[in-house]
């Protein structure tokens, strides 16, 4: 019989099954912590959630009431950080992808961007204190904290933008150049419109990253507790991530459900943002025509 299994076949198949099971278990182990964290948060923090929890101030030494100032503060911090890092990051990525010649200088810049992404957030925090709080005299403020966050998340924007620019086929650019389009006309009319979806998803990912950071804002603009809401970018603010740290570790007699509730809101924001990013990417990929 020409196609009968040989002994070697059986051995190969057993090894193949072994690896299949092994890798399957590894993957499961990867998902398990996420599932455990999420279910714990939902079970323990779920009861704390209510409209009031989201939209009232903390009371009674933060052991009761809601998280509105922290929620609002996080939104402030994220928006101001985006205002700074998105134009800068997108412009830098356009330069690097569309204009920059391939030389030592460009390679150094790219290396710097990779390294910027690897700098520990506490180092960014101290840089923020030195540069924005003290040198530029912004004081501990939303502005200083957001700029610190913005610098920290710049690599996310730059890398996402550059990747989506480079995903636009070179043939489109050549077509434009051969009709006498300048580089900028080419970018403006063809490259950017076809890259904008990738850039958007990058920005949304940056939002979720920015919202969760604690260290960079601790010394630069976020406060443990404030009796008032921020009125402008030079005010201090509360923030969800720091608030979570405070209610978990710094306040005695804290009811258990409250920190879990804060954590649930924080992780909810991050997960929603990531889902929006993924959904947007899938939707727009479906619409792509090349």
């Amino acid at each position: 019989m020409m196609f009968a299994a040989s002994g070697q076949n059986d051995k190969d198949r057993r090894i193949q099954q072994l690896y299949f099971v092994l890798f399957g278990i590894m993957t499961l182990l990867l998902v398990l912590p996420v599932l455990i964290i999420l279910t714990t948060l939902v079970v323990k923090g779920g009861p704390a959630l209510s409209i009031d929890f989201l939209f009232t101030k903390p009371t009674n030494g933060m052991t009761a009431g809601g998280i509105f100032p922290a929620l609002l503060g996080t939104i402030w911090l994220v928006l101001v950080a985006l205002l700074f890092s998105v134009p800068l990051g997108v412009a830098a990525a356009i330069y690097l992808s569309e204009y920059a010649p391939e030389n030592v200088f460009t390679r150094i810049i790219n290396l710097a961007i990779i390294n910027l992404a690897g700098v520990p957030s506490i180092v960014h925090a101290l840089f923020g204190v030195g540069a924005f709080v003290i040198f530029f005299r912004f004081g501990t403020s939303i502005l200083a904290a957001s700029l610190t966050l913005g610098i920290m998340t710049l690599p996310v924007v730059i890398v996402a933008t550059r990747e989506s620019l480079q995903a636009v086929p070179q043939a489109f650019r050549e077509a434009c150049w051969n009709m006498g389009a300048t580089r900028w006309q080419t970018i403006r009319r063809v490259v950017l419109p076809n890259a904008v979806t990738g850039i958007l998803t990058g920005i949304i990912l940056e939002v979720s990253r920015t919202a969760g950071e604690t260290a960079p804002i601790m010394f630069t603009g976020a406060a443990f507790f404030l009796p008032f809401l921020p009125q402008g970018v030079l005010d201090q603010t509360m923030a969800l991530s720091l608030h979570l740290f405070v209610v978990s570790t710094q306040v005695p007699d804290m009811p258990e459900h409250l920190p879990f509730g804060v954590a649930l809101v924080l992780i909810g924001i991050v997960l929603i943002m990531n889902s929006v990013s993924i959904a947007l990417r899938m939707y727009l990929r479906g619409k792509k025509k090349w």
Partner: protein
Amino acid sequence: MWKGVLAEFATQESNAAPAAIRTRDLNLWYGTFQALFDINLNVRNGIITSLIGPSGCGKSTFLRSVNRINERLGYVRIAGSIDVMGNNIFAPDVELLQVRKQVGMVFQRPNPLPLSIRDNVLFGHRLHEANKAAENDVVEKALREVLLWDKVKDRLNQPAIGLSLEEQQKLCIARLLPVKPRVLLMDEPCSALDPKGTEAVEELIWELRGDYTILIVTHNMAQARRASEECVFMLMGKVVEHTATDTMFVTPENKETADYIEGRYG
């Protein structure tokens, strides 16, 4: 025999006629690799000239020098001169965009932009002119010129990517026309097409001669023979032979040309 003599005569006369593309001692290097050696070529105005030769002989490199799109690769070095319609394209006061406008290029793979048919045709026009009122006329004229108007006039606002490859390639030619080029460079414009598409595009190229000077790179001997009036045979970065197409395919002067045409290498 008479045919050969007549063709010879035509070529001699052509040397006196004004050249659309005229190169003098053109040498080109990619880094340290020399791709073109002392190219001296007169491409006659208003006719179709085909560039043939084995892969890597420099025909595409030459083509891509004529609108200076090669220079985008930072490591290209060029010596010698290329005149297009009597003007040196390497002169210091030359505006690269003007060169690209005057010398259009059609690529091997049709590369319509991810826009509607109409917007593809108008892309170049809109870059250089703000005249909105003329747009409908521009679209119709360009599409008529490439024999596409009757097929697409009812779906101008549909994405160009929905056209067949043959139609896409015609569209890619059509969108060059509103910027009024003098020379059209074509880099194996039919190699992505099926035989029927090839025939249709060849027919179009034949129609366009006279209004435009056309320089076409092809691997396809039969195509060179059918669809060009003069033929340049290149080998190892040098021009081996440049004569009327009929002459080259009947009585080639050089042994290399004869061997290549007869398919002994390639």
